[in-house]
C-alpha cells in the first residue's frame, strides 16, 4: 500500500505554526510538500482542548504583528496573502501591572499617533506614555522617547529581515537600530531618566521573552514593545485552534499533503545532503529538502541518520546555545462571571516581591514558588469563550526546564499540584477571592506536558534564550554559515527570530526561503 508519493520537493517535519508557514511558502512557489505532524491536531502549542464540554485555550495565546484591518501588520498581511482569513479579536489592554510592594498598579493600552507606512517610521505620541505620566507626572517625554526608539528599531528589524542591506546603507536608514545593537535592555533603559517605578512598569513583558534585562538584547525588547504598543495583540475567536486549523485547511487546498500521527524518527542524509525521512511507523519518504521543527539539539543529537553526517560545528552550535524557558500554566474555568470574582482585566502581570529581574530569573531556575505571575482572563478579549456566568482564567509562569529535569515519575502529580496550588493561592490573594471555591475545570501544564504533546527539546516553548552572546543581530549575520547539512533548515521558536506565535511564522517563512534558495542553486 502506498500512502505517500514517490518523492516530494520538500518535507516539513512538524505541523505547528512555523512548519505550516514554511509549507505555505514552499507551496506558494509551486513545490510539492509533505507535512508530517506527530499529534492528531495541527498547530503544536497553538491549540485548545475540551474539558467537561468546554473549550479551553492551551495557554496564553496572544498573536502579535496582526494590527487592525485598516493598518495591517506583517502577520495579518502574510496570512491574507496566503488566503487565510482568521476572525481576529482585539485584546483590550496591553497589560495591567500590579506590584503592591512598590505601590504600582497601572493599566496600559496600545496605540500611538505615529505611523509605520511602507516601512517608513514616523514618530508619534504613545497612549501608554500618557497613562504613565498621569500617575507619574513629568515622565511623558522620556517614556515617549524610549517608546519611539523601540518603534523605530521594531520597524528596522522588520525591514532588514526581508531586505538585507549593506552596513553604510543600514547606518544611513536604520541608524538607531545599528547604534543600539550592541547593548542590553538594562544598558539602554538606564540612559533614560526615569523613576524606578516607571522602569519597573516597563519591564512587565520580560517574561514573554524569557530573559532578564541584563542579558536581553535591547533589539528584542524594542521589537516586543513596538509590536505590543503599536499594533496591540489579538486572539482568534474560535481559540488558537482556529488559526492552526485555518492554516492547515489552506495548505490542503494548495495541494500540500498534511499527515497527522506521523512521528519523524530519522532525517536521512548522504554525503552532506538530506535525501528523506523515516517515520516511527517505518515509512521511508524521499525529498532532498527538509524543514525541521524539532530543535537542532534533538535533530543533530539523534535524528540525523547516520549521525556521522553531523559536523562538529553543528554540535558546537547546539552546545553553545542556552535553552530558553518552558512553561507552568494553570488553566481554569471558573463558575462565576469575571466581575463576580473581582477580575476586571484581560492581562495582569503581578509581582509579589520587587521587579528585580535577576532575582526573578533565579526563581525561574527553581520549582517555585514564583513571585511573578501572568494572569489572562480571556473573557475580556473573547466574551463568548465560556458560557455566561463563567470565567476562563490562566495563570502562568515561564521557568527554565533545568529544575524540572530531576522530577521522578512517582512525584510528578504531586509536584505539579504543588506548583499549581501556589499559583492559584497567589492570584486568589491579589483578587481577594478564593478561586479554589470556584473551579469547574482545571488543567496544569508543565514542561513535561509540552514534551508529551510536541516532543520539543526539554519541553521548551521559546527556543533558545536571547542573550548578548546569542544576539539576534549576530544570529542574522552568521545564519548562512550555520546551515551544517545541505537541504536542511530549521523552523520553530528555536530558529533565528525566536519565540512567540508571530516570530514562529516568520521563522517558518525564513526556513522555506533557505530551502528555496538552495533548490535554485542546485537547479531543482
Amino acid at each position, binding site marked *: 500500500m502506498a500512502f505517500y508519493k514517490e518523492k516530494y520537493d520538500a518535507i516539513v517535519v512538524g505541523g505547528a505554526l512555523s512548519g505550516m508557514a514554511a509549507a505555505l511558502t514552499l507551496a506558494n512557489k509551486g513545490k510539492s510538500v509533505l507535512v508530517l505532524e506527530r499529534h*492528531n491536531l495541527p498547530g503544536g502549542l497553538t491549540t485548545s482542548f475540551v474539558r467537561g464540554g468546554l473549550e479551553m485555550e492551551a495557554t496564553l495565546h496572544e498573536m502579535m504583528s496582526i494590527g487592525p484591518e485598516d493598518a495591517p501588520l506583517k502577520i495579518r498581511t502574510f496570512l491574507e496573502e496566503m488566503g487565510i482569513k482568521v476572525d481576529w479579536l482585539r485584546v483590550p489592554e496591553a497589560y495591567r501591572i500590579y506590584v503592591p510592594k512598590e505601590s504600582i498598579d497601572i493599566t496600559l493600552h496600545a496605540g500611538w499617533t505615529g505611523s509605520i507606512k511602507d516601512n517608513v517610521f514616523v514618530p508619534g505620541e504613545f497612549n501608554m506614555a500618557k497613562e504613565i505620566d498621569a500617575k507619574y507626572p513629568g515622565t511623558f517625554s522620556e517614556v515617549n522617547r524610549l517608546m519611539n526608539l523601540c518603534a523605530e528599531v521594531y520597524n528596522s528589524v522588520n525591514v532588514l529581515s526581508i531586505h538585507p542591506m549593506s552596513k553604510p546603507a543600514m547606518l544611513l536608514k536604520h541608524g538607531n537600530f545599528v547604534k543600539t545593537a*550592541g547593548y542590553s535592555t538594562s544598558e539602554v533603559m538606564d540612559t533614560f531618566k526615569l523613576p524606578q517605578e516607571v522602569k519597573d512598569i516597563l519591564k512587565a513583558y520580560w517574561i514573554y521573552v524569557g530573559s532578564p534585562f541584563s542579558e536581553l538584547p535591547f533589539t528584542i525588547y524594542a521589537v516586543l514593545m513596538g509590536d505590543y504598543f503599536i499594533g496591540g495583540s489579538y486572539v482568534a475567536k474560535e481559540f488558537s485552534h482556529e488559526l492552526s*486549523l485555518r492554516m492547515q485547511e489552506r495548505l490542503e487546498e494548495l495541494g500540500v499533503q498534511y499527515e497527522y500521527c506521523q512521528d519523524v524518527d530519522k532525517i536521512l542524509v548522504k554525503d552532506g545532503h538530506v535525501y528523506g525521512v523515516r517515520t516511527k511507523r517505518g515509512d521511508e519518504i524521499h525529498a532532498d529538502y527538509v524543514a525541521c521543527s524539532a530543535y537542532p539539539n534533538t535533530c543533530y543529537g539523534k535524528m540525523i541518520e547516520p549521525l556521522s553526517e553531523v559536523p562538529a560545528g553543528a554540535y*558546537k552550535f547546539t552546545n553553545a546555545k542556552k535553552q530558553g524557558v518552558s512553561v507552568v500554566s494553570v488553566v481554569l474555568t471558573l463558575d462565576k462571571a469575571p466581575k463576580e470574582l473581582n477580575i476586571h482585566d484581560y492581562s495582569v502581570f503581578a509581582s509579589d516581591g520587587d521587579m528585580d529581574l535577576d532575582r526573578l530569573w533565579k526563581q525561574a531556575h527553581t520549582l517555585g514558588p514564583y513571585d511573578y505571575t501572568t494572569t489572562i482572563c480571556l473573557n475580556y478579549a473573547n466574551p463568548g469563550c465560556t458560557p455566561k456566568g463563567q470565567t476562563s482564567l490562566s495563570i502562568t509562569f515561564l521557568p527554565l526546564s533545568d529544575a524540572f529535569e530531576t522530577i521522578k515519575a512517582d512525584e*510528578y502529580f504531586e509536584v505539579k499540584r504543588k506548583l499549581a496550588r501556589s499559583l492559584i493561592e497567589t492570584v486568589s490573594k491579589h483578587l481577594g477571592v478564593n478561586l479554589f471555591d470556584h473551579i469547574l475545570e482545571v488543567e496544569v501544564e508543565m514542561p513535561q506536558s509540552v*514534551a508529551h504533546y510536541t516532543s520539543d527539546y526539554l519541553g521548551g516553548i521559546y527556543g533558545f534564550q536571547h542573550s548578548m552572546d546569542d544576539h539576534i*543581530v549576530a544570529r542574522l549575520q552568521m545564519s548562512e554559515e550555520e546551515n551544517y547539512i545541505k537541504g536542511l533548515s530549521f523552523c520553530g521558536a528555536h530558529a533565528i527570530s525566536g519565540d512567540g506565535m508571530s516570530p514562529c511564522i516568520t521563522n517558518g517563512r525564513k526556513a522555506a526561503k533557505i530551502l528555496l534558495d538552495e533548490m535554485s542553486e542546485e537547479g531543482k
Partner: protein
Amino acid sequence: MKIKSFLKDVGGASRVTKARKAKFDNASGKNEYTDPINALARELHPGKMKVRITKVEEVSPTAKKFTFEAVEGKLPPFQAGNYVSFSFQIGETKTTRAYSICSAPYQARTGEHPFFEVTIRNGRPGQGFVSTYCYENWKEGDIVIADLPYGHFYIEPLRDSKYIVGLAGGSGITPFYAMAQEIAHGTLDADLTILYGSVSKKDIILVKQLTAVSKECKRVKFINVISGEGEKLEKGDEKGFISRELIAKYSLDGNPSNGKTTFFVCGPLPMYNFVAKELAALNVPARRIRMETFGAPKDISKAEGYPVELIDKVFKMTVVRGVQEDVIDARADEPILVALERHGIATQSHCRSGECGYCRCKVLEGTFFVPSVGDGRRAADKRFNYVHACSTYPTSDIKVRIPILDD
C-alpha cells in the same frame, strides 16, 4: 565602553557577532544530547505496551477481575479513576475498549510485581461484543496490548472537596474500588462514601473487595442500594434507588448544596439520567459533580435529532489515507469508527464516547450525525467538518480522511 555614548556607537553589531563566534568556538564539538524532560514525558505516557495477564479472579457470577503486569519496562503512574485502553484484533475487526482501572495506583508502582487490574462483565446477548470476548477468552499468561493512563475521572485536590460521594451503578463501581484502595493505602487524602445501586445483590461486582476495604479503612464507606423487590438487605444496606433523599443523607452535614461534597458518578446511561436529575433537584453546584463518560449510545435512533428513517441503511464510505483511497461499507446505525474497525483499518481511539478526540478525522464529502450528548469537538473543528469518528454516524455516502496508522 561608556554606556552613555551608545547613540554614537556603530560597532555594536560586530561586537555581538564576535561574542557569539567566540562562544561557539569555545563550545564542545561532541554530541551531548540528553533530554530528561522528554524521557519523563514518555515514562508518564508510554503509549501502547504489551502486558501479561497474571491472574484471573471471579468477582461475581458474571464478572472477572484480570491482573496485568508489564512484559517489558514499567507501568506508568496513574491516578485512581483513570482508564486503560486495550487494543484487539478479533477476526477481521481491529478495535479498542476502555476499562476503568480498578486497582490502586500505588500497586502499579511498588512491590515486587507491580500490576494493574480491570474488572470486566460478561456482556448480555447482542451487547458488549468485546467484553464477552475478554470474559470468555482472556486467560492467565496471555499477552495483550494496553495503553494507559487516560481519562479525567479522578479526584483532583485542586478542585474537588476532600469529602467524596461516589454514585455507582453496574460496572461503574470499578473506578471507586481504585480510589478506595488508594485512600486505604494512605496515598490519597479523601473520605469516600460509595452508594452502589443495583437491582439485586445476586450479581453485583467487587462487593466482597469493597466491603473489606471499608472495614479496613474508616475513610471509606460502602453502601449497597438495592431496588429489587424481595431482596434480603443486610445491615448498612439501603433500599430503593440512589434518590435525592439518599444523596442528601450521605452528603457532608447532610447538605449536598453547600459545596462541601463532591459527587462522582459512574454507571450506565439510565442511571446517569436519573442521578443527574436528583443532583439538579438538590441544587448541587456544577463544580461538585464529576461524570465519567459512558460510551456510544446503544441505539442511535433514539438520539435527539437523529433522522430515524435512515437507520437501516448501509452507505459507501471512501477512506482516504495519504494518497490512497479505499471504499468500504458503513452502516447508518454505527459510528464510522466501527465501520473502519470492521474492515480491519487501523485507527486510534480510547474513550469511544466522543470526548477524548483521539479518533479525530475529517469528513471530506457527505453528511453525518453527531449526537449532542458527548460532542467533545472544538468549535473550529465543527466549522471544518472534523469529527470524532467514535460519535459520528453517516447519513449519506461519505468520504473521510483519517491518519495513516500502524496495521
